[in-house]
């Protein structure tokens, strides 16, 4: 059985050929890998490939299909593409054209809210100020549009990636 796995812009076809105990044989886009593949602890694997020792740690980002993968030297975001992912991806694309959501990449606190539902906004207009760890960041409108929803109020704490303001740019 073959799976589609996405890393940055690359989508690879991965086939699990056999898997007995530690011994894992897989093909990535037709290139075969004979690995000694062992789970060390939850989300952490030791992999020997041609006697090279790799340590890989996986942190689930969303459900079971998206992971932050840390190797000794570098971090990657990897996604398993299955039917659900494909559907969501196509929906996301369609949505993004007209509708945008303002969110903070990190948890913080809403210091100042400049808009309310129904407001018209212009490109570059500051919508909200979020404070996190002694630093304040302003979030601005990327174009002209109108505020369709405001999910938070001033003084409220927000999680990373939590929707804060929805804008219709159409």
């Amino acid at each position, binding site marked *: 059985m073959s799976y589609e*796995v996405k890393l940055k812009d690359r989508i690879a076809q991965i086939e699990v050929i056999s898997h007995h105990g530690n011994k894992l044989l897989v093909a990535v886009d037709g290139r075969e890998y004979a690995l000694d593949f062992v789970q060390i602890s939850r989300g952490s694997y030791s992999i020997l490939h041609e006697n090279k020792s790799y340590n890989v740690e996986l942190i689930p980002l969303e459900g079971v299909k998206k992971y932050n*993968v840390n190797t000794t030297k570098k971090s990657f975001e990897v996604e398993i593409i299955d039917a659900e992912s494909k559907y969501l991806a196509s929906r996301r694309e369609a949505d993004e054209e007209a509708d945008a959501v303002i969110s903070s990449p*990190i948890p913080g606190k809403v210091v100042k809210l400049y808009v309310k539902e129904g407001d018209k906004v212009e490109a570059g207009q500051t919508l909200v100020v979020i404070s996190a760890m*002694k630093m304040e960041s302003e979030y601005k409108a990327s174009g002209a549009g109108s505020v369709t929803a405001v999910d938070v109020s001033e003084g409220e704490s927000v999680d990373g990636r939590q929707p804060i303001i929805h804008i219709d740019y159409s």
Partner: protein
Amino acid sequence: MIKKILVANRGEIAVRIIRSCREMGIGTVAVYSDADRCALHVLYADEAWHIGPSPSVQSYLHIDNILAAARESGADAIHPGYGFLSENPEFPERCKEAGIIFIGPSSHAMSTMGDKIKARKTMTAAGVPVVPGTGDAITDELEALQVIREIGLPVMIKASAGGGGKGMRLVKREEEVRPGLRAARSEASTAFGDDAVFIEKYIESPHHIEFQILADQHGNIVQLFERECSVQRRHQKIVEETPSPILTPERRQQMGDAAVAAARAVNYEGAGTIEFIVDKDLNYYFLEMNTRLQVEHPITERVVGVDLVKEQIHIANGKPLALRQDELKQQGHAIECRVYAEDPENQFMPAPGRVTHIDIPYGVGVRVDGSIYEGFEIPLYYDPLIAKLIVWGKDRKEALERSRRALQEFKITGVKNNLRFLERIMHTAGFVEGDYTTHFIDDNEDTLMQDETCDEHCEDIVMISALMEYLRKIRKASPKEMTALKNNWKDYSRVRSVLKL
């Protein structure tokens, strides 16, 4: 003799202070805000007292609450750490009134050094070189122009009431003098309602080098050599080392003597740091004095072989210094890397969150001071410094190689952090050669922001791992259903329902 110390701080420095207290057999009291109930200093101390809501002004900066905790817990001394109340001259006064020993200098020394003009005058009187410029604020344009001519270009014009870069102008050429001065004064007037300005010589390729001093209550003062702190981003130190790669023994001696003179001029007591700005010709000028323990104090501890927190406590106990200047020596080389919860790929935005996993480096020559643990939720109210890596080597080369090794072992997952950025600093030519100024980070942005490389199979192995983890989770969710699955479309609906269990 002090029997119980309240640590009026949080994070790694609170834990570090408690460690030395424990070694001395002194009882320890942690204080904590709402956000810090599960912070490491609370878990690690003998006692923990709640002092208010999460924002610092209502807790770690709230003198009344802290003194109340000291009284109720029976602490006979308070260690302020760094930041928060550590340089507030009101705090030692209030401690004194409450009959509690403040582990640090007098309110007088603090307020003298805390006021730029007073500090400058005091240092000039003590024969410590200061950056050429106006001692007093200037409100008259002609006087300002004359001063600029005396100092010589380039100069920096600073709003007297200012801060945060507002009302600051760098003037490099003759024709910029008048417009620069006017712009600075007008900006200052708008921002602070006061158009008085200072004028100072601008040091072009500056080094930030500081000297550690210890002074007891009996007039004995020693200096424990320098720390080179020029690796900074937006005036925030990131990497420090000692000895400085640029100082000569003669200049080290002179600056050390100046540091002792500076401390003596304010009757200093305790541990303190005299910061100098040093130009490429090794001219040095007093910048300011930090009247407390510094974040980067461990590199001095390692190279000089002294526990600075213990020395602070001995001094507060009224003991004469056991250290003699002529016996103090720098042994080998130490480098500190500050680990921040921040996202280097996104303008170094602070990145609070839950730490899911930590790999800490160990072994020869490695010390880690930190305040996080697996499962700890880094609060968003405070400084993003979460750990310090202090590495020692018999010389700079070994310290550098060991820092690379330790940083490679060091992994924190769950929160974004600057570990890989620090690793790249250790490989950047300017740092490797010891040839860098405070402009280092800006000058090397391209190198420092470069992405790591991964060998030819690495990406494939990463994808394989993610897939195997995905399959393991799917299988675990429902082994029987899954084995019967044949195609992706069928997978989809079943997996979804199974995972909701």
